[in-house]
């Protein structure tokens, strides 16, 4: 707010990277690229580069952490030291502890955890390069990795953010917009039912602005879901083509 010298919205209404207010950054997804993991996915979203890997379900140790009725979905969100401008000290900080928790909760909403009592499904999200919106990009990648691992799910989970810059509600903030904007609204949904599994907000917004942001992120999530479906199916379509030659 105090950096008045940075102009986030141009005269013609476009943003500093040329996008319209409701336009997503380019997104690319690839599924099943890691050899050892039970499931994996790689996602590029704007300048974000994120790898997700799933191990399990496997028996939870120590035993007292087991849930006798269901599997525990344990996501770990982690940022590589080189993922940001100023080197980040390795290991979990308070922010990643919180994000790991909200991502674990969001994924648990989709997984049929009751199928695997006493187990843990570990989801490792590694942010290799960060460019705003890493938590929802990580969530989107993690859900692909879970599907790739053959874990039963009611639906995929898809994330998107909206926010407010210079008084305008916009979709999918980039790094500058995130730094100098007025609000950020990360949202995670189950696309089939539209249920909300992750919702955070910080900044300054009216009720109307927040509802507009929610709608914007929701509609974009549906578009991102179509990319997820294609990325999952492509793995097997492409292999078939190669195998047939």
């Amino acid at each position, binding site marked *: 707010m*105090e950096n008045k010298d940075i102009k986030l919205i141009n005269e013609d209404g476009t943003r500093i990277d040329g996008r319209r207010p409701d336009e997503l950054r380019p997104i690319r997804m690839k599924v099943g690229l890691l050899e050892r993991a039970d499931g994996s996915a790689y996602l590029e979203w704007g300048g974000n580069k994120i790898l997700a890997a799933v191990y399990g379900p496997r028996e939870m140790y120590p035993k*007292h952490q087991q849930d006798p009725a269901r599997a525990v*979905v344990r996501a770990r969100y982690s940022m590589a030291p080189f993922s940001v401008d100023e080197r980040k000290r390795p290991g979990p900080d*308070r*922010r990643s*502890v*919180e994000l*790991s*928790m*909200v991502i*674990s*909760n*969001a994924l*648990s*909403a989709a997984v049929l955890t009751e199928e695997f009592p006493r187990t843990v499904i570990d989801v490792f999200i590694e942010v290799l390069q960060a460019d705003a919106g890493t938590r929802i990009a990580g969530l989107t990648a993690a859900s692909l990795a879970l599907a790739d691992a053959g874990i039963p799910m009611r639906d995929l989970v898809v994330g998107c953010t909206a926010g407010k810059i210079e008084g305008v509600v916009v979709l999918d903030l980039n790094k500058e917009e995130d730094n100098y904007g007025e609000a950020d*609204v990360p949202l995670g949904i*189950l696309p089939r*039912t*539209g*249920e*909300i*599994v*992750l*919702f*955070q*907000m*910080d*900044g*300054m*917004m*009216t*009720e109307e602005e*927040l*509802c507009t942001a*929610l709608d914007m992120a*929701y509609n974009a999530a549906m578009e991102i879901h179509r990319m997820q479906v294609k990325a999952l199916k492509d793995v097997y379509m492409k292999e078939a083509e190669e195998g047939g030659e």
Partner: protein
Amino acid sequence: MSTKLTESIMSEIKREYIESALSRGERIDGRGMDEFREIKIEKGIIPRAEGSAMVTLGNTKVLAGIKVEPGEPFPDTPDRGVMTTNAELVPVASPTFEPGPPGEDAVELARVVDRGIRESGMIDLGALVVEPGEKVWIVFIDLYILDYDGNLFDASSLAAVAALTDTVVPAERWDLGEDFKLPVTKLPVSTTFVKIGKNILLDPSRDEEAIAQARITVTTTEGGMINAVQKGLSGTFTMDEVRKVINKSIVIGEQVRERYLR
């Protein structure tokens, strides 16, 4: 192991009790769906702290203590003071709280309370500069959970906000001029709801929390502004439910602000 088993059997019985009451449109303690438990705020109970407040919300008790000390500003904000929030789920509060560094629940609690205060601009950090780029006032908000009977988010947020309004910056102690009241511009209020079945309830008790599938906290300030939202637990909300919660939070937040914080 055995205590865990006893607790899970207890909660099954309580679950049925709570759910059957909800199916008749009632809560087991007789409250309405959008009603807080009794709120009591006592300020200044720790005179050695620069500011303090004890909040009692039903049987939940949270003590907030504020310390203010000079220190270095962050390099990217040389002309602003610093605030930081920490929460301790101290073992006196519940048999399930253990001593040691804050776990993920305490981290989430502290970060959500922090976000509401920070994003609302409650503390005028620009007025906490001693020497730009060199020395600013650092405001430490420490939350002590003394008795856990549900809804730590709202009790902690109220305690922190009340304690900040009680705070005097101890400039004389550091030979930095005269003591002055911490400049406070806004009064953020957090409202937390849980979802049990199809019901959405404000200010969940511990029993209600134990069987809730999803939780949402919305922090609002004067003029109907929203400053922070946090959805918790592994259940879901519909878009419609979220819109209603946001609207209620603004209305109820204003009532709490008028009645308890002004």
